[in-house]
């Protein structure tokens, strides 16, 4: 034992050099490291409620309720992969440098969207702001966006049926 005592003490002294790892946390807070992948915050001013983030989310902690167009986010299930941030076409999602993320409430952020109602049947089919964003990107008003997919389909079917009828009539006349 005697023979190994001196090198051991020397090693201990060396090991003790370097940065201190013990601090009086939580009284002495530890600043988050740069570039930390923390929980996300959704900017309600930028979000249009398209739901791309909810589709991408592997943990399904971001969900879009398709009847009310409410986007819900919970830190509790979040795996901090930031796929949502990468996917968001509006750059509405950002990460916050925070690591004390124990939460009690099951949902930590809710973004509500006003649904657009179909001009024909009155059903809710998309968030209003999504339609506005589509028009903004296209650069003009798109009247056919104001009807729901079901009514649009009906309309399209009607139009093509009319076309078939008309062409038959024309054919009949020419014969």
């Amino acid at each position: 034992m005697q023979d190994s005592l001196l090198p051991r003490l020397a090693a201990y002294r060396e090991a003790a050099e370097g940065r201190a790892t013990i601090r009086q946390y939580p009284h002495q807070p530890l600043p988050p490291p740069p570039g930390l992948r923390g929980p996300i915050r959704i900017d309600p001013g930028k979000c249009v409620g398209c739901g791309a983030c909810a589709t991408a989310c592997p943990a399904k902690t971001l969900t879009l309720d398709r009847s009310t167009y409410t986007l819900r986010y919970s830190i509790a299930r979040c795996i901090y992969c930031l796929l949502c941030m990468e996917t968001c076409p509006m750059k509405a999602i950002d990460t916050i440098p925070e690591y004390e993320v124990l939460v009690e409430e099951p949902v930590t952020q809710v973004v509500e969207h006003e649904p657009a109602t179909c001009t024909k049947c009155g059903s809710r089919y998309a968030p209003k702001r999504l339609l506005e964003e589509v028009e903004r990107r296209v650069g003009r008003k798109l009247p056919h966006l104001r009807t729901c997919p079901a009514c649009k389909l009906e309309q399209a079917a009607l139009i093509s049926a009319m076309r078939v009828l008309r062409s038959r009539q024309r054919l009949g006349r020419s014969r």
Partner: protein
Amino acid sequence: MRLLTGGLKERGVEYIEATRSNYRKVVEEILADKECRLSTCLAYDGRGIDGSLHVAYIFTCHRKGRHVVVDVSVDPATATLDSLYPLTGSPACTWCEAEARDLYGIRFRGNPWRGRLVLPDGWPENLHPMRKDAPRGRPKIRVEEAARRPRPGIPLGPYHPALHEPEYFELHVIGERVVGVYYRGFFVYRGIEKLAEDRFGFMQVPFLAERICGICGYVHSTTYCMAVENALGVEPPEKAKYIRSVLLELERIHSHLLCTAAILHTVGYDTGFMHIMHAREEVMDAAELVTGNRKTYSANTPGGVRVDVDESMARAILEKAERAVSKGVKLAREYVELGEVKSRLEEVGVLSREDAWKWGALGPVARASGIDIDMRRDKPYAAYGEVEFEVPVMDEGDALARYLLRLEEVEQSLHILRQLLRSMPSTPLRSEVTDYEPLRVGLAASEAPRGECLHYVITGKGKKLWRWKIRSPTYNNLALVPELLIGNALADAPVILMSIDPCFSCTDRVIVVDAEKGSRRRVSLARLAAP
């Protein structure tokens, strides 16, 4: 409909379709090559594809850098096949066949494994959860029956003293010598493979793969991504390969330092444990700098990586890694010279070269027993083809050799990091995966800190996986522990187990739950099985 295996050959994988009548002959031919041995096997439910169940045996020809897959179709009506255990003699073979029996209900004639492996005792007889038509919901487990199994012996676990992960070894002793070992694991088997097949898109699986293991998670996500890239014929850009290698080596450094520290902890030298863990912190910081997290980097995606390493970052990584390695390795070498530490490791748990090969040892366990294998060199992946490094090999085969070998590997990792970070190419970070096609087969292997890690992927409809098989290195290394313990002193059992650096969570394929740290009380099986 057939599986699409085109493109596998260029990536060093030979795919052989065999039938029940000729597969033994095929396997005998493969095993005639002394470089080849059985790596693992897997079953998959192909009834939705061609009407039969399948078992695929995967062979690794280490020094040739080649994998051979032998796919045997099994008639679902009888669901019986002859075991390959008499041919291979490796405990890993009994394991993978027992797993296939539990999960797919395929019986293997001649497999010596008795009882359950993956599923709990008391699980319903004819419920095989990985079959595609398995009913949903929680099955009724007959707890009383499971608990009523008296077994004399000395329990080691379920809360293992070194790792706090539930695994149960029962040691039968005469005096102080271990003469028999009963092993029961997979207490926390949660079916990550089933989860991925059911719920995740193939682009989301890397995040799940990363959570297979709390130590070497990045290896799993990288190997999964490589398997998918092989299946779909996608080539990640150069820079992505370099960044993957950088992160893999950082992970190897911290994993090996953790293992050496844990060995010191197991022999009761906690001061050494603390000092080495302190040195290891620098590597964790380096990983945090690149990916934004100490562990679980979330940096991979099929086709490339999601993080960038610029020049200043590269310098910082290298600085931190150099500090960690120089300090950690120096301390670890000094501490192991202390008499009371060395005497606990020297000539303890000796694994001979022949046994190591036959029993399927991988990684540092194999290399400490004189088997010169390393996937990074034998079948270069990521950027390992671009760098020079040595594969340290030792002949002693005892716990001390496994300890010292890891330290040498850490030094080699630093050597690799230096080369990678100096010649980082400037290309885009990812290539898009555009043409997804169902029923393509992909196989990828990598050298995890604990040995060869295999991922086998069959793509399915709707951008989901039909089958995803993970074979972590501990799966093979742990299977040989019972053989390794026999004949050793009882007091050495924990340190022998620790010296193979077991990663139970990889093997059970679950998320590490750090429950009840340090407690060693025995939990009854009834409580474990209770829903």
